[in-house]
């Protein structure tokens, strides 16, 4: 394992821009370099994960397939905020990817414990 870990922040809804895809690509590349990677979804970022998305009608690639395949890359640490779930009236059951729901203060600790943070 590399001596640095990496936290990637997702803050944008699906289909809005390329930042979610670009961040996901960083996750896969860094994981291939044995960098331990965690993901956290803040604010609109959580909308990227909700069930029932049918991106075919937009003729866009669905990133959810890749999010669901992250375990194959040993990326198992995905976090959302309890406060964001409440904001959008969601529960973790509404998300199509396994995530840990954490408090705001736990999020601050997670950022502190991360050696590198990329927030596109």
């Amino acid at each position: 394992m590399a001596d640095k870990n990496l936290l990637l922040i997702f803050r944008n809804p699906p289909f809005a821009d390329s930042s979610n895809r670009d961040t996901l690509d960083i996750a896969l590349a860094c994981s291939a370099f044995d960098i331990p990677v965690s993901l956290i979804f803040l604010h609109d970022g959580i909308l990227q994960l909700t069930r029932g998305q049918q991106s075919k009608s937009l003729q866009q690639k669905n990133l959810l397939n890749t999010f669901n395949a992250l375990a194959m890359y040993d990326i198992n640490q995905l976090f959302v905020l309890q406060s964001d779930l409440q904001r959008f009236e969601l529960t973790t059951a509404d998300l199509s990817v396994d995530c840990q729901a954490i408090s705001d203060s736990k999020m601050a600790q997670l950022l502190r414990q991360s050696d590198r943070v990329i927030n596109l």
Partner: protein
Amino acid sequence: MIFSLLIYASQNSGQAEQTALRFSRSALAQGHKIHRVFFYGETVSALSNLKITPRDEIDITRQWLDLAADDDLDLVVCISAAVRRGVLNQQECDRHNRSAANLAAGFNLSGLGQLADAILSSDRLLTFGN
């Protein structure tokens, strides 16, 4: 201190690249090293040598090259970001059978592994974006 920079911005909006350039000049002047500058996302659109900068505006691409010439900077452009935006080096031009290569000389196309390496090889990673 060894820095690497991740540039994720559009040259046509915001001032992220100007800030990154000023930061780089200051860091180098203070004796720090810059291991790599990694250009990602929309940033790479502006790295075409077909771009015409209006006379009364600053050519930021030129400024990166000037800095690189003075201090031997490694300017790496994400290959997948570049190819999807039509910014090609000769190798990609040949591979995809396009009419011309247009990546500005002095920049190198490579994969995201170069960003991973930059993370591992540097004391600090700074992101400049908009």
